[in-house]
């Protein structure tokens, strides 16, 4: 069977699973059995079928599991976003459609050879920094929930950080391929741009007080640096530098401090200073409220979960229990309603997506392609780890999105752009480099 036919078959299977999940969320919400969910399922199916058809023409040899994995994650995300906030669910469906459109456009745009991107690596590098700084520009950026991540363009709001991440990976893939031998020899002057990146990351951290995306971008950078040079000492040095930088800034960043305190000690037996209202409160009722409620939600799932539509996300008087449930905390909703079995299954979908992307990097023939796929693959993994690990209290909680699953337009669209790039690399790797 050809790769694309396997993709179609897998997409169909994913569609069945997703339809069952979405139908139960719909039926639970409507409190009666009807077919109102069908148009939505059909629409989503159609969107991915369109994506598949474009892939069939442009990247016929690309890995057939990538698109179905993304589709299934999207559908699970949609189901839960709809389950939590139906209005956001409808909007998310629109974003997924735009995301698949972006996916198709990238495929069409780079149909001959995506490696042209390498030529503009410095453009991407500079744009990445500019994009990351955008939210700090007065009058343009908006601070939401203490973090400057948003940019207002007319009526539209977007998170430039999501796009910057892709640009950064493209720049690093190009730059590191170019300089890897020199870097491996340890020529000091080649570290200049890298130190610049470190400085940039620190600057962005100070400007946006967003530890999550700083960690994500820097982590991707270190992983790619290691792949390019094979020097573990660089990674260690980088981690030390980042750690030292973050520690030096620790006192200056109230928000980071607060996150770390909450992470170390979410529950207190005595009332402590509450940064939200300045009064004395139990920390679980104040600074760590969100984390603690989310942990209760996860724990309530147990092995089998409550079932879709049967979880508890509201207090008795009907107020939302966990703020930002459909964005940063979507995983705690999934874990409650699907239980350990379902949550582990979702994590395994991410594992599969990461493993397949890394496989693309392994079989790719040129350095730029390898580094590009490795950066994107490790990016998926690290982003998943930072947000889910934050929700699970493995690491301090920082608000970033769960790829393909969380509610949010910028995130969905940029994830599909990344997927398109991986499929382009994959297609070329399998087909072998034509002249």
């Amino acid at each position, binding site marked *: 069977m050809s790769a694309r036919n396997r993709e179609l078959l897998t997409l169909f299977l994913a569609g069945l699973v997703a339809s069952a999940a979405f139908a139960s969320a719909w039926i639970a919400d409507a409190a009666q059995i009807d077919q109102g969910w069908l148009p939505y399922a059909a629409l989503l199916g159609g969107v991915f079928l369109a994506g598949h058809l474009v892939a069939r023409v442009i990247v016929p040899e690309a890995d057939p599991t990538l698109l179905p994995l993304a589709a299934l994650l999207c559908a699970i995300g949609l189901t839960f976003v709809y389950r939590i906030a139906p209005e956001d669910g409808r909007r998310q469906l629109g974003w997924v459609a735009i995301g698949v459109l972006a996916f198709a456009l990238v495929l069409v745009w780079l149909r001959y050879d995506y490696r042209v991107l390498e030529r503009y690596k410095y453009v991407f590098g500079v744009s990445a920094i500019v994009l990351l700084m955008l939210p700090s520009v007065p009058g343009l950026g908006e601070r939401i929930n203490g973090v400057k991540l948003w940019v207002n363009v007319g009526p539209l709001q977007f998170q430039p950080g999501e796009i910057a991440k892709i640009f950064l990976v493209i720049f690093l893939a190009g730059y590191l391929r170019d300089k890897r031998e020199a870097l491996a020899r340890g020529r000091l002057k080649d570290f200049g741009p890298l130190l610049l990146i470190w400085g940039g990351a620190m600057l962005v951290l100070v400007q946006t007080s967003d530890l999550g995306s700083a960690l994500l971008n820097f982590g991707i950078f270190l992983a790619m640096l290691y792949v390019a040079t094979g020097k573990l000492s660089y990674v260690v040095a980088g981690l030390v530098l980042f750690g030292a930088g973050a520690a030096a800034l620790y006192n200056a960043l109230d928000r980071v401090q607060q996150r770390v305190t909450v992470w170390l000690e979410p529950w207190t037996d005595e009332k402590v200073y509450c940064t939200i209202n300045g009064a004395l409160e139990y920390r679980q009722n104040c600074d760590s409220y969100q984390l603690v409620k989310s942990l209760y939600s996860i724990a309530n799932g147990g092995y089998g979960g409550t079932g879709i539509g049967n979880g508890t996300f509201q207090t008795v008087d009907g107020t939302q229990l966990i703020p930002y449930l459909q964005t940063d905390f979507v995983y705690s909703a999934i874990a409650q309603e699907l239980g350990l079995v379902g949550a582990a299954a979702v994590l395994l979908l991410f594992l599969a997506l990461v493993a397949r992307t890394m496989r693309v990097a392994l079989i790719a023939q040129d350095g730029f392609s390898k580094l590009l796929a490795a950066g994107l693959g490790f990016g998926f*993994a690290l982003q998943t780890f930072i947000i*889910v690990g934050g929700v699970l209290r493995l690491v301090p909680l920082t608000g970033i999105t769960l790829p393909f699953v969380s509610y949010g337009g910028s995130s969905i669209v940029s994830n599909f752009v990344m997927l398109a790039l991986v499929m382009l690399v994959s297609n070329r790797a399998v087909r072998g480099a034509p002249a």
Partner: protein
Amino acid sequence: MNAQLTRVTWMAMALIVALVVGTTYWQTWARPGLAARQDNEIQRVQEFQVKRGLILGPERVLARNRVERRGGKTLYFRKYPQGKLAAHVVGYSTVARARAGLEKSLNGTLTGTEGNLGDLVERQLNDLRRKPIVGDTVVTSLDVKAQQVALETLGRRCGAVAALDPRSGKLLVMASSPSYDPNLVEKRFGEIAKITADCRPAAPLVNRASQGLYPPGSIFKVVTAAAALGSNRYEPGSGFVDPGYCIAYGKRVNNFDTSRPFGNVDLATALQYSVNSVFCNIGKALGAKRILDQARKFGFYERPPLETPESERYPSGLYRQGDLWYPERNSDVDAGRMAFGQERMLVTPLQMAMVAAGIGNAGIVMRPFVVEKLVSPKGQTVERTKPERLDRAVGPVDARDISNMMVRAVEAGTGTAAQMSGYRVGGKTGTAETGVASRNTTWFIAFAGRPGRRPEVAIAVVLEDQSSTGGSTAAPIARVVMEALLPSTANP
């Protein structure tokens, strides 16, 4: 580059495996601990998805459910059709203020979380069928009509009434004034806080019948008399000379009415007319520990057993700096003053009803209970309370002697206001002075039944901040409540 790539791949996969491990930790290992946390609202919501069992009086519904659909869930909230009539026993179960009363102490039964294995399996099946969990119904022994009579007679006065069936320990009345409407607790708690009565603070949420600690005054003489007879050094005919006062620890303690010393009196007459000096001398002769040991046999120094929450029942006894205190040596206590109910003795109406019940029931104190039976959702009786003996407080002969003295006090003594035609009533008045004329705590304890039969009801009535005596204030309330109770208990 592929060697590095493989390592980075392993690293990436390890990150995600760590997430699976983390999820497993919270959903299995840490789960019970989180579920038990006070601030876990998810558990709270689930509690309100349980169809709680009803709480019934023998013929009235005291607590039922109000069904509401919110956020796609069916929730059950409480409604108390009798309002303030049984508030202190039934309590409340709300979102805003947790629980009180039987709603608190029997939460497990009412929510069906306690039960045998068959019930648990059934419940799991219902859960799968998405049927609500249904709890057991609690049937109490409260006589709502007598309860109403008690509250109405108490009126604006602060105080309490506790009435038992001495033969079984069955609680018939537990009224505390001022009372509150438990239906207001959830959303209109402010109205409860604004309740006023003839005392400050009005404290309507306090169950004065089992949480109210009052100086007993002369009703404690019943305990002293029991100790005196039990010591075999006195008998009802033992003679005393009453000068109108008694010297205790060098201080002169007057009778209630000093203008008329009794002169030569016997013990029976002293109880009939509540002569302080006689009991003061008995107390000094017996010593405090002997009297306290007698009090213990009536149940003092323990929380009186009842199904209401432990925190809503206080033990009676000597208190020092707010804590229950048992003296090590006789000399630590002024036994003379304690013998007629002063000193640092504090008692609850429930405890004093148990004293009256013990005397009336030939010296045997029955274990008080208010829950008659538990009924499963299918209508089967799961558990029925069997009357149980708490202790033999006094010997049968002494019990008969003391009841005769108490009957004399009602027939022609301080408690004449409690007389009821057709019934043999024995009682004892009490007036604990606080030094301020209008702030006496007045008491009446009594038992009553048809002549020649064992008493069918025992009662304790307390009133705060009274200017008059127990005989004129508390005894009439006791009579009215007993009248409300007796016809129903006399014709089973």
